[in-house]
């Protein structure tokens, strides 16, 4: 009886290895959609511009002396348009040194995903 030719066995073995490799690649690809989604959500939901806009407005209000009605408007507008709870307090002349007078600005922003708090000292030269 003729003996079996077993010289091609490594081809079968390589086939198995390639199969296992493709399987793992498929698992990685399946995971990548989930990762991409959560990452893009994180980027989309971070309210960078909302905080920057609010900050610049509040600093502008503080430069003009800190009128209270503008702060109330800011609070209402933030809730209506950005769905964020905003609170700011402006204290002119909170800190003093020989050359400058500082206005203390305390800023609070919370939109349910991101909470941001900042205390900021705005300097103004004292008139001699």
């Amino acid at each position, binding site marked *: *009886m003729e003996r079996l030719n077993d010289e091609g066995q490594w081809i079968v073995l390589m086939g198995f290895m390639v199969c296992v490799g493709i399987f793992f690649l498929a698992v990685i690809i399946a995971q990548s*959609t*989930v990762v991409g*989604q959560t990452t893009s*959500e994180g980027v*989309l*939901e971070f309210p960078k511009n909302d905080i920057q806009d609010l900050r610049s407005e509040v600093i502008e209000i503080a430069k003009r002396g800190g009128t209270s009605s503008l702060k109330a408007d800011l609070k209402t507008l933030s*809730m*209506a*348009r950005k*769905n964020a*709870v905003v*609170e700011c307090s402006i204290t002119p002349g909170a800190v003093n040194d020989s050359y400058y007078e500082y206005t203390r600005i305390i800023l*609070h922003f*919370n*939109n*349910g*995903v991101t*909470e941001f708090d900042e205390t900021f000292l705005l300097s103004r030269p004292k008139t001699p």
Partner: protein
Amino acid sequence: MDERAVSESIGFIIIFSIVVAGIGLVSLYGYPMLLQHQIGADERTMEQTMITIQNDIKLLTYSNVPYKDTALRVSGGALTVYDMADSHQEFEFKCWNGTDWEELHFSPGELRYVSDQGTAIISFENGAVVKRQQDASGSVMLAEPRWFYDNRTKTLVIFQMGLAADRDLSLNGIGNLQMSRLNEPDVYELSYGPTEVKVKYTPDGSNDYSQAWHNYFKGSSIIPGGLDDPGDGYYVIDGVSRVIVKQYNITVTNI
């Protein structure tokens, strides 16, 4: 090598029976397992699709985008839109104004996926994506709504998302989900000084997600430590000085 008693036919019979047994095993056990796997994959895909829909609704509501259009594939089941008027579940808010309870009732409508072969039911309900199994009492929240309590200003912010459809809509296969939000949200703002706010979820009797909402209210998402649960169905949060409830109406134009 001694090759007496070696027969080709016996070898063939052995190899052939191994092959037949292999085919039999695969069709008996392997194929049903494969189908089961397919059902599981369909349900998982649908979970992700629901989260995508939730993201679209977030854009429609929080980001003030008027129209949104999503291509989606619903396999292994059907996705149905339930209008706010047809929904049986209800969210109730109560706020003590010093002399009386001010009440606010809201039926959010629902986007519901029901698996054909499997047992999963996945819903978009009032901003959350929730899932349960048919014939089982538990439920789980896959993605939470964005309700929050700001501890510094003692402000409780609640977003309600109602779905409206002017006719019965349902999808099986590949389709396009068109949604719009053209009206300003109804805003209820109550500020009575430090007060008590109660929240209650009344489930749809045939599709009960109360466990998922219970876990959400009791978990640390709204406030660290969760809302109090006195056991009467209401979840209580105390010391709230400003309550804002925003009700968005999202219209599903086509699916």
